[in-house]
């Protein structure tokens, strides 16, 4: 399947029909998704109606929009009216939301065709998509390996060429890390740049929706469609955002880029470090100045994150109590029903994080855990701000390793370490993205991460495009 921009152009000019393109997407899914398990649910009827509407618009001389007829997959923690939305949890099995997330409306208004809902770690808690109540997703590059997570289904759907675009959500790296492991582009926008109305909340001060794409230009196109103010989300940034697509090819000449010392050493595999150094050289060759920069507080990011995110999750997930939606396990009174429902409905990782968060927020521990973590957050934001006085962008690996074997990381802490490079951007609220850059010693994709200051997505995409061009030159 062609890229999103190319597809939309050919559909808008009547060369291909949106209905035929949607059929081709479902054909590809049908052929290989038994093996990959990227999708939990296909939205065939909705796709058919939308594709037909796009074709009708073209036939009538109307413009169906910049994503005309482009098939897109949606992580199953975003609400789609009347279509199952499970968060890969038994507790929401069978639930059909009574409304669409804002991003769904924006995509369809731009002509995109939603083909289905993708697998994730339950409630987006995980880094491998093994932790789904409905079974793991497999990495299309090697089906014995994980696709990363938590947006593993969305990453795999793009990597397997089922769709040119998908949406994920990123709380501590859940878009960027699977993008790296699957060899696709993945973007975590600025906190507040994309509406979260209809995204089922995990950690509200960290969660952000963003696109996966097969190339940087398509990611920029999709970001421009889904971003912008939404009155339905009180954390949505009210100022108009700069479009990123018009400048994506502007290059990096004259940019100052900092390679983050603390994310280039202990705990990161040698082949990943080697590729990141090569990416730095490629940016230098493209006209940027690259220097090392130290951001010492980044090493505390992981510890702070694994207090803040569970604390917020313990509060957000209190709503799953068997009263208003999803599964209920009966009990003789309300409290017994709540306990029975939650104990049967949540998986172990979700329970673990709810308990961790409840503990971190509980009387006598609040200041020592949650309060301290919030201060570390300020420290990280301050150190980023200092770094950005000298640099336009920062560079690091995305993931400490390439895709690992399914089942290889059974203890929770080993999995948490996967997020060490990606967490600092969530804590600071800054945009960051992963771009494929060559392969590791095992032949599997490596991603490098570009980090930008608040609302500097346009600048970030320029560097990402320069890296993508350089990577093409290598192979």
């Amino acid at each position: 399947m062609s890229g999103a921009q190319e597809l939309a152009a050919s559909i808008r000019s009547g060369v291909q029909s949106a209905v035929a393109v949607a059929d081709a997407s479902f054909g590809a899914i049908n052929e290989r998704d038994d093996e990959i398990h990227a999708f939990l649910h296909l939205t065939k009827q909705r796709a058919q109606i939308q594709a037909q509407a796009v074709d009708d618009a073209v036939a009538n001389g109307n413009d169906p929009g910049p994503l005309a007829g482009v098939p897109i997959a949606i992580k199953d923690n975003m609400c789609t009216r009347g279509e199952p939305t499970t968060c890969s949890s038994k507790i929401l099995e069978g639930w059909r939301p009574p409304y669409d997330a804002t991003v769904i409306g924006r995509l369809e208004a731009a002509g995109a065709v939603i083909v289905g809902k993708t697998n994730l770690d339950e409630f987006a808690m995980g880094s491998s998509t093994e932790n789904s109540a409905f079974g793991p997703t497999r990495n299309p590059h090697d089906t014995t390996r994980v696709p990363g997570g938590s947006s593993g289904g969305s990453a795999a759907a793009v990597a397997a060429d089922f769709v040119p675009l998908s949406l994920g959500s990123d709380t501590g790296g859940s878009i960027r890390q699977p993008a790296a492991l699957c060899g696709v582009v993945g973007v975590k926008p600025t906190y507040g740049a994309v509406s979260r109305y209809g995204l089922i909340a995990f950690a509200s001060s960290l969660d952000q929706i963003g696109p996966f794409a097969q190339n940087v230009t398509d990611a920029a196109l999709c970001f421009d469609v889904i971003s912008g103010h939404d009155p339905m989300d009180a954390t949505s940034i009210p100022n108009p955002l700069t479009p990123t697509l018009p400048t994506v090819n502007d290059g990096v000449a004259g940019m100052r880029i900092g390679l983050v010392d603390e994310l280039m050493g202990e705990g990161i595999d040698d082949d990943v470090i080697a590729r990141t150094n090569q990416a730095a050289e490629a940016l230098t060759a493209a006209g940027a100045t690259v220097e090392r920069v130290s951001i010492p507080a980044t090493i505390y990011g992981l510890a702070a994150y694994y207090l803040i995110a569970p604390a917020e999750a313990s509060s957000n997930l209190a709503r799953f109590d068997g009263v208003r939606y999803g599964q209920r396990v009966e009990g003789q009174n309300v409290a017994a029903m709540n306990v029975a429902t939650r104990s049967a409905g949540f998986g172990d990782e979700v329970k673990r994080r709810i308990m961790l968060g409840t503990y971190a927020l509980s009387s006598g521990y609040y200041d020592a855990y949650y309060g301290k973590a919030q201060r570390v957050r300020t420290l990280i934001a301050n150190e980023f701000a200092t770094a950005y006085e000298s640099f336009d962008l920062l560079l690091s690996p995305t993931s400490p390793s390439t895709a690992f074997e399914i089942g290889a990381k059974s203890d929770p802490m080993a999995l948490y370490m996967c997020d060490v490079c990606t967490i600092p951007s969530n804590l600071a609220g800054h945009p960051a993205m992963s771009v494929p850059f060559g392969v590791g010693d095992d032949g599997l994709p490596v991603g490098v991460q570009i980090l930008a200051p608040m609302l500097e997505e346009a600048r970030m995409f320029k560097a990402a495009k320069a890296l993508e061009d350089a990577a093409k030159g290598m192979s």
Partner: protein
Amino acid sequence: MSGEISRDEVAHVASLARLRLDDNELDTFTEQLCVVLETAANLNSLDLSDVPPMAQPYPLTNVMRPDVLVPSLDRDEVLAQAPDVEDSRFRVPPSLGEAP
């Protein structure tokens, strides 16, 4: 701040969070939560007394909207997704005393 949590504390936290754990789960979760909290204890080495806490990254406060009527969710559609409903309300078991 101790980097550890006892089995009894885990049981207490589970009950606060409306979760029931069996004995095996209690053992496993206690061990796993200890490891995570030990990592969290890394933060103890930092002097943060002069650093203010940060609750969220983008400083928006008192977000208001114009007081204009807009359509809300369809009540029947919402109730159709609930586990139990009676007279357009969510139905739950008794909240006090024994079940009738």
